[in-house]
């Protein structure tokens, strides 16, 4: 469980990344959310066999990571942690669609494999873009931006609570795991007889703690609405940011840029 805490739920570190001072950190969170939303819609709307056409889209998450001063390895490791979902989503594609779609020399690649690769690439693009955006804006600001962009309040509040309670759950899990280890003398996996009461205990403790946190919030006037000091206003640079990237996404959507470049270099007709 401590591995889970350190590797998969180190969201606290992500929050510290939002304290950066790069030009991207100065962007209004709504601009980042809107641009990322347009990015996701464009990426998802591409043809199911698209692989080369997806390549230019890597420019966006890479730009966020590089210009936002984010550790690329950290963001990719977070994406990898949830990649099992994408691996499962397209796993039967190679079996269901066996018709050769493209020849690479003597090697025929079926449509199933192409669509599977496409699913994985789309997953990588969208997840790294969202993670980078949240790391730059900070989760609370991200939620506030969602709200101002018209996302329903119950959904945004649920997101905020989920985020808060992930910390609670993992902190308690860590303590329980430490206590178990301190009294375990045999290495190896936990037995079910230990695991089940431990999980039950964790759940009860988390309920208890969640109740205390909620009380503390109520004591300071929490009424279901998260308010924060507005850090920035939407400026011309923010509008330019959204429009510029949207234009790039639409261009990359309309024209298969790598294919066009290939044809140009090879002197063939597209």
């Amino acid at each position: 469980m401590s591995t889970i805490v350190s590797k998969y739920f180190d969201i606290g570190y992500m929050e510290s990344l939002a304290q950066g001072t790069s030009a991207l950190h100065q962007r209004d969170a709504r601009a980042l959310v809107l641009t990322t939303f347009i990015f996701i819609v464009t990426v998802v709307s591409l043809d199911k066999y698209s692989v080369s056409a997806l390549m230019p889209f890597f420019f966006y998450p890479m730009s966020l990571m590089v210009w936002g001063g984010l550790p690329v390895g950290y963001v990719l490791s977070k994406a990898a942690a949830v990649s099992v979902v994408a691996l499962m989503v397209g796993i039967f594609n190679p079996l269901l669609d066996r018709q050769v779609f493209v020849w690479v020399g003597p090697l025929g690649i079926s449509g199933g494999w192409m669509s599977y690769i496409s699913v994985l690439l789309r997953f990588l693009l969208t997840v790294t873009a969202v993670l980078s955006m949240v790391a730059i804006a900070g989760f609370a600001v991200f939620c506030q931006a969602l709200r101002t962009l018209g996302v329903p309040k119950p959904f945004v509040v649920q997101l905020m609570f989920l985020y808060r309670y992930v910390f609670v759950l993992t902190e308690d899990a860590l303590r329980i795991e430490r206590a178990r280890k301190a009294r375990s003398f045999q290495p190896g996996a936990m037995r079910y007889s230990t695991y089940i009461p431990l999980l039950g205990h964790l759940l009860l403790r988390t309920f208890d703690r969640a109740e205390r946190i909620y009380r503390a919030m109520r004591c300071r006037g929490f009424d279901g609405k998260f308010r924060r000091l507005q850090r920035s206003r939407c400026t011309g640079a923010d509008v330019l940011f959204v429009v510029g990237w949207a234009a790039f996404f639409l261009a990359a959507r309309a024209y298969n840029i790598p294919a066009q470049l290939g044809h140009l270099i090879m002197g063939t007709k597209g």
Partner: protein
Amino acid sequence: MSHHLVEADSVHYAYPDGTKSLQGVSFRITHGESVALVGENGAGKSTVLLHLSGCLFAAQGQIRIGEYPVCAANINAVRRSVGMVFQNSDDQLFMPTVFDDVAFGLLNMGLGKEVVEAKAAAALETVGAAHLRQRPPYRLSQGEKRAVAIAAVLAMSPDVLVLDEPSASLDPAARRRLIELLKSFQHTKIIATHDLDMALDLCSRTIVLHKGQVIADGRTEQLFQDEELLQRSCLEKPLRLQGCPVCGK
């Protein structure tokens, strides 16, 4: 609030599992008083504090904060008057940065941006945590967390400060700083604690709870000399009053 009076009148409360936590608790605390609530574990100290801040409502009897009876209809007025610092600061701090956390209550009060920024900065300055303003709360030491939790409450300018075990899990230096900080406040203070030395330092009056009832209410120094009372409440005479272990003077 006109007189900053805190009054409990025969308050009864039982938790949903049937545990009778308060059984006819009565007291009256006036403006500017510093009062320690002491007693064994499960005596009802924290339950009293939760009633004062409107987190729980009395099943019988009544709690009044100034002119407001503590009830659902008055809850906002009560919470503006009473600032509660919880036992575990981690329960209280949840925003991404220290400054956001201190500003949280102020924003909920509907104050403007400039006022919020000024009050939050002033509160952090008061507790000596101005340098922590951009730090994420979960990365602070226990002492720093406690200071920030107090700043978060102090920023809201409450009339009454209610603190649940404020010195718990602090190292001696942080505990001493906390005591000096609390001493400097002119608020009415109600402090639930097992730390009788701190109670002796901060509170001129002490209320002793035992099994949900007030069994003593009087001057702190006088009550802490009563060994029978302390023993009955599973407490121990503060070190300062214990005297020399050899000659007893």
